[in-house]
Structure formats: structure tokens, C-alpha cells
């Protein structure tokens, strides 16, 4: 009896948001894309960096929103405060910092040498006497809203965000903030690619479990059956429309190879093989579903462009950045606790990394074909079942923000 309730897997999803077909033009229309730029990417909180990458005063990272042709500098000041600025010299608009990350006591424009301090103030102008009327105090870098949650830095191009980051990310509460923000998490590896597909299609690919049995028939179907990937929506949330979860089957199906089983002796990097050694995870109360013996991960959709996978000992972040209606950058990043110290751990890390890489190639495989069919007008609407309800929740959130002209509530 007790065992039955412990092993029960949540229902696959629901029809609570309706059953009607969803139009597809928001994936292909330039007009809709222009609205997304204005009302979503200029109004919502966007994950832009990791706090650990700006741990000391002068550390900086840059973040680029291609569709907006906007580059942002995030740096930590001498006062320990994290600030974000448009990467735009107030002299003649050159990008000031061009590296993805680095350290600079001052931010010096490479064009003519204007110097800005870490608080964004214009500190020095070579040949200042060459200018006429001039008030340096008015020519600091243009500041951008910034906040930190779970160790991730978010920026918001709205100078006065309608909601703060904490409210935006509810129901992900302080437990998540603490767990994800733990100092032991370090970036391990990641990949980046450009796709001829709308930025939302690559989000869609990660937020429903209905695809697993077919899309992953040559890799992991059996290790995470579609029937073990339930969905949940957060109707009241502003920035977290939905999540999906993954549970192992009681008996692993599919091929558990000799290599995978050897790997499993030395770590838990692979999502798809039950490890003999579990990761240790600190501060996971209220975040990890550790009471369920089959639970693997929860994946949260952070509106508009993030899928955040949370599991014991591993964080996986997928981001998409729009370029045009039919083009985007896709990237995925992994965070782990602890260093790889011996060959067994290295073997486990390599095996897990390759397995997820190959699975991701399958997830990414369909997007460009779908985009072609939308662009060509062959398919004008899509059908969403109850297990795919995160897609519907995502669409509703998108359209509600667009129709509300950027209003989030």
C-alpha cells in the first residue's frame, strides 16, 4: 500500500487550458516577431549570466540579444553591487567590451578611449578640452535593470520592471533560490548552435513528454518512457508557465549497454542510466523530489526562453535567443557540484555528456522542418494534447503578454 503511493507517478497532464488547435503564425510572422521584440524581450526578465562569473569587483560578462541588436555588460562594482549597462559608449556608440567575460578595473572604449568606472560613470575622456559644452556627469553608461536568483543573473530592458524577479519566478520559491544558488555549482560544459527555426520551437521541444517514445526511439526511449513524463501548469505564475517531470520506469527498458553500466559505477552524470552512486546535493529540500524513488528531474519553463532542468547534482539550462522569426541561437549549459578527480568520474562524465548530446540532436532534429512548413503556410495550426499542456500554457502566456502590450499581470 505504502509502496504503491510512493511509486505513483503524477497524471500526464490535463485539458484545463482547452483543447482547441493553436494557430501557428506566431512562429513565422514578422509582424508577431516585432511584437515579441517590443513586448517580451524588452519587458521580461531574461537570464543573462551566472553570478559566480562576476564574483569579484571588475569581473564582467556580456550578454547579447540578437533580435534587438542589443549587447549588455554585467559587472560587479567596488561596492560589490552587480550592475548591468547597455554595451554602448556614450561618445559615438561603439561596443565597449567585446569579450564574453573578463576582468576590467575600468571599462575603456576601444574606439577613442573613453573610460567608464564600474558604476558606469564616465571617468575620463582623452582630449576632453577638444569638446565644447560638456557635462561628464550626464554621459555615464545607460543602466539596465538587473537582479539575481538561484545564482543566475537576470536583466530586464524595462527601466521599471512591472514585477520584480522574485515575484516573476513564483512559484519557484526561496528553496530554489538557495539550492540553485549554492556556491558549489560550477559550469561544466555546454554547446551552442544556430538554427533556422523560431526560438520558441526549441523551447517547445523540451517541455512535453509526449515526444519521448518516438523522437528518442534510437536513444533513450525505455529509460524515460513518455508515460513517465507528466506535465503541470502554473496558471497563476507570471514567469513560470509550466513544468514537466521525468521518472524512470520501475524496470528499465531498452538497451542498458555495458559502457553505460560501467559508467554508472562511478557517478550519476547520465540521466538515462540508474547510477550506483547518487550525487550528493546540498539544500535540496523543497526542490528535489527525493521521496520518489523513480524521480529523475523537473524541467521548468522560465518565460520567455529558458528551460531549467533541476535534478540531484546537476542543473541543465537551455536558452534560445531569437535572431529573426525563423532563426535563433540555441545553447545548453550544464552545472555540477564537485570536480572530476579520478578516471572513473571522467569516464562517467564523458559517457553522460555524450548520451545527452546525442539525445539533444534528436530534440533539435524536428525544428527546422516544422519551421519550413509554417513558413510555407502548409500548416496553419497545431494540435496539443493534455500531456503537451506546457505548450498551451506557453502559448497562452505569450499571447497574453502580446495582447497586453507587455503587461505581465
Amino acid at each position, binding site marked *: 500500500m505504502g509502496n504503491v503511493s510512493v511509486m505513483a507517478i503524477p497524471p500526464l497532464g490535463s485539458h484545463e487550458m482547452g483543447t482547441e488547435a493553436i494557430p501557428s503564425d506566431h512562429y513565422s510572422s514578422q509582424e508577431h516577431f516585432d511584437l515579441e521584440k517590443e513586448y517580451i524581450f524588452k519587458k521580461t526578465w531574461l537570464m543573462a549570466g551566472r553570478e559566480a562569473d562576476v564574483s569579484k569587483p571588475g569581473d564582467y560578462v556580456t550578454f547579447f540579444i540578437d533580435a534587438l541588436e542589443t549587447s549588455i555588460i554585467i559587472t560587479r562594482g567596488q561596492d560589490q553591487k552587480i550592475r548591468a549597462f547597455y554595451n554602448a559608449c556614450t561618445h559615438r556608440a561603439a561596443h565597449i567590451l567585446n569579450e564574453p567575460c573578463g576582468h576590467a578595473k575600468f571599462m575603456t572604449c576601444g574606439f577613442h578611449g573613453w573610460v567608464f568606472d564600474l558604476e558606469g560613470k564616465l571617468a575620463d575622456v582623452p582630449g576632453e578640452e577638444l569638446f565644447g559644452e560638456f557635462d561628464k556627469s550626464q554621459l555615464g553608461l545607460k543602466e539596465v535593470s538587473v537582479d539575481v536568483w538561484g545564482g543566475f543573473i537576470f536583466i530586464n530592458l524595462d527601466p521599471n520592471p512591472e514585477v520584480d524577479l522574485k515575484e516573476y519566478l513564483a512559484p519557484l520559491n526561496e528553496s530554489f533560490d538557495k539550492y540553485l544558488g549554492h556556491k558549489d555549482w560550477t559550469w561544466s560544459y555546454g554547446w551552442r548552435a544556430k538554427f533556422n527555426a523560431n526560438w520558441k520551437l526549441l523551447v517547445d521541444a523540451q517541455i512535453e513528454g509526449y515526444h519521448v517514445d518516438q523522437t528518442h526511439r534510437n536513444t533513450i526511449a525505455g529509460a524515460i518512457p513518455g508515460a513517465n513524463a507528466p506535465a503541470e501548469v502554473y496558471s497563476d505564475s507570471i514567469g513560470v508557465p509550466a513544468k514537466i517531470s521525468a521518472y524512470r520506469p520501475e524496470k528499465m527498458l531498452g538497451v542498458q549497454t555495458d559502457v553505460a553500466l560501467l559508467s554508472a559505477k562511478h557517478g550519476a552524470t547520465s540521466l538515462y542510466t540508474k547510477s550506483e552512486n547518487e550525487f550528493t546535493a546540498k539544500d535540496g529540500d523543497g526542490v528535489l523530489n527525493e521521496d520518489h524513488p523513480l524521480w529523475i528531474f523537473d524541467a521548468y519553463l522560465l518565460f520567455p526562453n529558458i528551460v531549467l532542468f533541476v535534478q540531484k547534482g546537476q542543473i541543465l539550462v537551455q536558452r534560445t535567443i531569437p535572431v529573426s522569426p525563423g532563426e535563433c541561437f540555441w545553447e545548453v549549459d550544464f552545472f555540477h557540484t564537485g570536480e572530476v578527480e*579520478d578516471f572513473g568520474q571522467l569516464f562517467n562524465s564523458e559517457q553522460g555528456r555524450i548520451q545527452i548530446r546525442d539525445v539533444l540532436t534528436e530534440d533539435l532534429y524536428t525544428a527546422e522542418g516544422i519551421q519550413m512548413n509554417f513558413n510555407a503556410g502548409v500548416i496553419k495550426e497545431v494540435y496539443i494534447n493534455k500531456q503537451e499542456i506546457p505548450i498551451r500554457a506557453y502559448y497562452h502566456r505569450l499571447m497574453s503578454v502580446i495582447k497586453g502590450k507587455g503587461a505581465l499581470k
Partner: protein
Amino acid sequence: MSDLIPRPDVSGLEAEIDAWALATTEDRLVKRMNSSMQEIQRFYDAMLPILPATIEYLNQFNLSELAGDDLTLSRAALAMCEVDNSVNKWKKPILSTGIDTLRMTKKTGFNDRTIL
């Protein structure tokens, strides 16, 4: 190095080990993609019997101390992770239901924005 666990006997396997003991994951990926299924299977069949002992043997050293033949052996062992799916799941060198893996550019950090 004091090796309490003995080094597995790789006599007769040197050619396979040398062919696949490439330095990086990306090198080994390209090797797999450019190999025939017969070549992949031959390497897999040669390496699998000694793989458990190889991991145990290499596991007793600090990673940074691996050098020479042991470093070569470690890379060949890691190549088994690369060919595993080809041999056991796809039965061919390249997954036909995924994008070209080489499109996924390796990042160097969270904010890396390699120009693609």
C-alpha cells in the same frame, strides 16, 4: 606511480587503441563519424573485454599524472563512450534521426557566444 591494480594486458590491441586514442571528445566524435561500422565494431570488440579492468587500473592514479601509454589507454577507453550508441543502438556510425552533431559547437563558458 605505485600501481596496486595491475595494468590490463593490451598486447595485440595496440593498433586499435592507437587509432582511437584521440585527445578530445570532438576528435573522437569526428573519428566515429568518419569510420565505417566495421572499423567501429572492431575497436569496440577489441576494447570491451579490457574496459572494466582498464577503468579500475586508471582510476587509481591522479588524472593529472596520466601520461604516455596510460594517457593513450585512457583516451581509448573514453572513445568507447563515443562508439557505444553506434554499436548497441543505431547499428551504424551516425544517428540518422538527429541533427549533425558537429553543428553543436562546444562552449567555453556560460556566456560564450562563439560566432557561428
